[in-house]
């Protein structure tokens, strides 16, 4: 179903180039002089705060409202406390759709106005995927569209050092088969193909869940992924075990991963890309989301000293180019005319372009001008986003917290520590059925 829709969507891209400015005109922002508005989000870094503040400043400029951004790295807890105590901010950017779904079922979110789903379908690449991600059951159990994504990131990326590839005569692989062949080639040449690190304090193990999800989307149809994430098929389904084993092919192979398999579980994810840049290189490739350049050594120039390619799909599977990513979902947590206007404002291309011109921001909004991206690296990632035939959200963020932010993480640590894929999957399934 998605495939036909998405084929249609990509065919629409050209015609939308004309349609987008028209829809931009359609959104009329009201005059909100004197009204104040609090926007709550997960961004706490200086550059990110500056970016979201610039986006909000434009909103204030256009409407005369007095909107203010408040950031928290513990948004997941804070928004629940504030909503239950009755002092929720007007608009919240949720880093996890699961959290938004939870809040929606308790009646803390306000649904978007009629027609918003059509707007997403018309304007977002792989639109149906985004509508589904923003649709949750309300307090009465009825499905409603509560929000749409603003500021997304890509996870299906492999980072490498172009100079090292060139010196060794390696080509960027186009298919998963090529990628596996390249890994074997690197081993033959006496090198180590991969750097993988799962360490992340209390969240240790999450980078492995991204690997498994990415491989799942490449091994099986997106529908299987959806069933897996919603537990319609058990976690120990043979197809899930197959994806975990595919990850094991990379991570549990002493010759394929820097430091050997036992180093995977103990290396911090922030330190693991450093192996790419060492002399001699500890590894040639690193699969990680679009945010990882923040952890590259100082002075690394993207596109020159480091670059990325799309984590390719199997040529033989014919599943298109699935893209896995994450992002923040904007939703109204405290309804007011100003909150509604802010959501309308986020639909405007300009709200996306302001942040695109800075850093660390990708958007599936087809109306936003690709030229607005700050650099070629971001633009290339933006193109991957727009060309995606399927977009799927980071599955572990969609699973219940006890699984997606618990059993799945620890299970992956056990797996790289030596447990078999079946045992790990069985354990996670047991944990899930005990919820």
């Amino acid at each position: 179903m998605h495939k036909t829709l998405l084929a249609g969507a990509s065919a629409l891209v050209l015609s939308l180039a004309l349609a987008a400015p028209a829809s931009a005109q359609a959104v009329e922002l009201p005059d909100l002089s004197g009204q104040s508005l609090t926007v709550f989000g997960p961004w706490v870094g200086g550059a990110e705060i500056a970016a979201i503040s610039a986006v909000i400043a434009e909103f204030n400029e256009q409407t005369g409202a007095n909107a203010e951004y408040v950031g928290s790295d513990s948004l997941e807890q804070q928004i629940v406390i504030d909503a239950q105590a009755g002092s929720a901010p007007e608009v919240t950017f949720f880093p996890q759709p699961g959290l938004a779904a939870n809040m929606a079922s308790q009646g803390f979110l306000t649904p978007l106005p009629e027609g918003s789903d059509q707007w997403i379908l018309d304007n977002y690449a792989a639109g149906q995927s985004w509508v589904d991600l923003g649709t949750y059951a309300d307090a009465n159990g009825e499905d409603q569209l509560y929000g749409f994504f603003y500021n997304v990131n890509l996870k299906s990326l492999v980072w490498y050092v172009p100079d090292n590839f060139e010196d060794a005569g390696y080509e960027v692989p186009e298919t998963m088969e090529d990628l596996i062949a390249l890994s074997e080639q690197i081993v033959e040449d006496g090198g180590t193909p991969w750097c993988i690190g799962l360490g992340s304090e209390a969240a240790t193990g999450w980078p492995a869940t991204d690997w498994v999800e990415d491989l799942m989307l490449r091994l099986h149809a997106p529908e299987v992924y959806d069933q897996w994430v919603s537990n319609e098929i058990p976690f120990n389904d043979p197809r899930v075990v197959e994806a975990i084993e595919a990850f094991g092919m990379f991570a549990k192979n002493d010759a394929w991963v820097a430091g050997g398999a036992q180093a995977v579980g103990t290396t911090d994810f922030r330190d693991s890309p450093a192996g790419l840049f060492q002399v001699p290189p500890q590894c040639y490739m690193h699969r990680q989301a679009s945010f990882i350049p923040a952890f590259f050594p100082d002075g690394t120039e993207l596109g020159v000293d480091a670059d990325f390619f799309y984590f390719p799909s199997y040529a033989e599977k014919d599943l298109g180019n699935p893209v896995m990513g994450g992002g923040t979902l904007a939703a109204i947590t405290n309804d007011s005319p100003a909150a509604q206007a802010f959501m309308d404002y986020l639909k405007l291309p300009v709200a996306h372009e302001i942040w695109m011109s800075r850093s660390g921001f990708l958007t599936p909004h087809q109306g936003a001008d690709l030229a607005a991206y700050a650099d070629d690296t971001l633009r290339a990632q933006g193109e991957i986003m727009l060309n995606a035939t399927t977009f799927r959200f980071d599955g572990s963020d969609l699973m219940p917290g006890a699984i997606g932010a618990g059993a799945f993480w620890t299970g992956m640590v056990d797996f790289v520590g030596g447990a078999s894929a079946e045992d790990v999957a069985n354990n996670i399934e047991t944990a899930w059925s005990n919820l």
Partner: protein
Amino acid sequence: MATITQSSPVTAEPKAGILSNIKVTPGKAMAHLALLLLVLIWTVPTFGLLISSVRDRDQLAVSGWWTSLTTVQRSFAGVLGTPADQVQEDDQFVIRGNVLGDDSNQVLVGFGTSINNPAEFPAGSSVEMRTGGTITVSEDGSYVWTSPTAFAHNRVRLFYTSQVPPRFTLDNYVEVITAAGIGRAFVNSFTVTVPATIIPILIAAFAAYALAWMRFPGRTLLVALMVGLLVVPLQMSLIPLLRLYNGIATTFGGSAKSYLGIWLAHTAFGLPLAIYLLRNYMAGLPREIMESARMDGASHFQIFVTMVLPLSFPALASFAIFQFLWVWNDLLVAIVFLGQSQNELVLTGQLRALLGSRGDNWEILTAGAFISIVVPLVVFFSLQRYFVRGLLAGSVKGG
């Protein structure tokens, strides 16, 4: 004041006695050695943190702080000059440059043309390049690359191994101190901490006196209740308390998240421990003093103000230190009851914000820790003499 001067000779006398009684026995020497060892072990992490705070991010990522004091040998890649840099000398084309950069204090020990062998040739030797020409690299990193034909390469890297001497920088500190909002966060932290330390002490001192020396029905039950409150985790009360504040704010106007709110919250969270500590201390004061004062006609209030308060000063000071440290280092209560916008953040929140959404700038955490530690240290050292005197006074009474 009179009572304080009275108490000081009492403490000074036995101190001298203790000192003159010290005899060096093997047992004592062992105990002291063990103590010294414990102190050393205890200080190592802080020392490591201090060293880490003056190292730069790239070094932190690749090596531990204990390696930072010695010269280490590491390999790097440097990009050689482009054809645009070449000059023609006689019948040769020459590119000159320095792979180490201009202001480096590294010493190059070897270099190579393959990334897998960055120390193939010793410094000073001449080597044929794959892209053409001959390169000579000397110890200071400067190179001369000559070729009989004009250079036309695109981007060529040279790999080298060099001795990297210890390098320290105050950049992390500069980054934290000059970060936007740090000054404001300091002020906010003080605004929260000072009243949140004084208010509970005031209340707790009165309550502790009453619970220790006034006779009324249900007194023991109240004390037991207080001890029971000590085990209630404060996280449980966040939502009910915030809801109460919201209710008050909507009824009487004003904001639910204010300084008054956070002072009261900290006071409430600190009171059980404060009352418990002070009550125990006050209950240990000599009964004779109270009774003679009572016989002279002093009221409870007079006894409390003129005798118990000055005598309890060490206990008050100890609790003040505890409460100050706890409130100063608190993040949770502050972000719940004060909010998280830029001008409401306390120092802990601001430091957390500097780290970035994914801990991107974790190297500044070390410097941040030392900057935020300064204030508690000043408080501790300025109150410490009362702290020590309090401990001594207690020990003397027992002996």
